[in-house]
């Protein structure tokens, strides 16, 4: 029955619905964007009503929230955290810095384009993005999940070599454990 395609579809729908309604966020507070997370979670905007909730460790998280620029040093940690997360998992790029470097566009030690290193599902624009836009970003993610389009993780798996090559270019001495799947 489990291998049955139609029943699999139903299961998928239910699963996606559940995933959509329950987004546990691992906020990687790298940059100034982290300051926008508390207002998002607390009384004024209350992201919890959407099922968004903080997760303490990557093992439990669904979404990796990169709140701002990544330096070459933090990239390694972020990759590590992402790889420790369990499927299904999503990445939200938060703020302009993750898109093109933002105000750090000419910095020698920040990552300009996050997408080259991690498969970003949703970008949230702004410097800083206000909680409203964060919420809308979550909304977008939910949409994508329910449609089954938020498959960044799959992309990462498929193009692992390309990602690795990019990552290794930034991180010269690569000592990382294997990817966890």
């Amino acid at each position: 029955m489990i291998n049955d395609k139609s029943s699999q579809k139903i299961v998928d729908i239910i699963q996606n619905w559940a995933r959509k309604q329950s987004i546990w966020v691992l906020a990687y507070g790298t940059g100034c964007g982290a300051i926008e997370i508390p207002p998002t979670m607390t009384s004024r905007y209350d992201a919890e009503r959407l099922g968004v909730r903080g997760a303490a460790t990557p093992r439990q998280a669904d979404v990796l929230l990169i709140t701002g620029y990544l330096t070459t040093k933090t990239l390694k940690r972020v990759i590590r955290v992402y790889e420790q997360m369990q499927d299904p998992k999503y990445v939200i790029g938060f703020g302009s810095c993750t898109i093109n470097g933002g105000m750090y566009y000419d910095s020698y030690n920040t990552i300009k384009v996050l997408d080259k290193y991690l498969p970003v599902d949703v970008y949230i624009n702004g410097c800083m993005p206000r909680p409203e836009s964060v919420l809308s970003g979550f909304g977008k993610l939910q949409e994508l999940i329910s449609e089954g389009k938020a498959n960044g993780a799959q992309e990462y798996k498929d193009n692992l070599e390309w990602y690795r090559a990019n990552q290794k270019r930034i991180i010269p001495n690569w000592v990382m454990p294997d990817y966890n799947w």
Partner: protein
Amino acid sequence: MDSIWYKILGVVVSFILAFIVGMTYMGLSRKIIARVQNRKGPPFYQNFIDAMKLYSKSTAIHHGLMQHLGPAFIMVSSIMTLMIVPVLNDGKWFPNLNFDGDLIFLLYIMVFGPLGMALGAGQTGNPNSAIGVTRGLSQMVGFEIPWVMALVALMMQFKTTSIVDLMEVQAQSGTWLMFSSPFAFIAAVLAMLGMFRYSPFDIVGAPTELASGPVSENGGKYLFTLMSSGAVFAFAKLTLYVDLFMGGADNLIVLLLKTFAIYLIPMLYGVVSPRYRTEQAIRYFWGWPTFFGLLAILHAVFF
């Protein structure tokens, strides 16, 4: 109808009931806490969604056999507790094992799970898990004292160690034990604050301080099992309180009302309290709660 299958059926049914009720209560508590904090809060069924999602998540790694078995251990403890505690008066509907064990057995089976879970947490090798476990165990030593004092007071007063007998007593006298033995009730409730691990006693999980404590390395179906076990356990404990102090329940509605009333106590206390440090928590339990426990025992001995 006394066959083994009937009993197993009873267990399964009460497990499902406990799961649903416990999850709902947890969801409601999130809702209520959110309302207290002037938020809208998630829907009351949010925990079901979370559970479903967790179950659907993949679990690609483990840190060894003990981590794998840890959730099973804790499930044993929850379900055994549920089986020993009579859900409704007179053993109605849910024919459990409650004639095969008693309060002392209950006290011990209740720690079976946490210890097994602690082993699982230990094997992950995450320092946060171990720290969480040590905190949890320390806190347990704290709240067990008033809790046992309350139970001992009851047992001494009515010369029985059986939960069923204590319910009988209440049924016969017509008054709930929370009125006839108020000190025991107070001590037990104060101990319950620690048992439910709401703030200020949430030092075990201690979000943002210890990652999430013992469960740091558990995701997916492990976390799902832990979560459902927590729900079942919460329901079992609430039912126990109801049975002991509030005369049990004749039907499910009464049971739900009474359990929820009890459940509100630690939850509301937690909403307005910041977190204790471990030794503060322990000393708290050895302060007033223990004093009330002593009063309870004196009450039981002299009245």
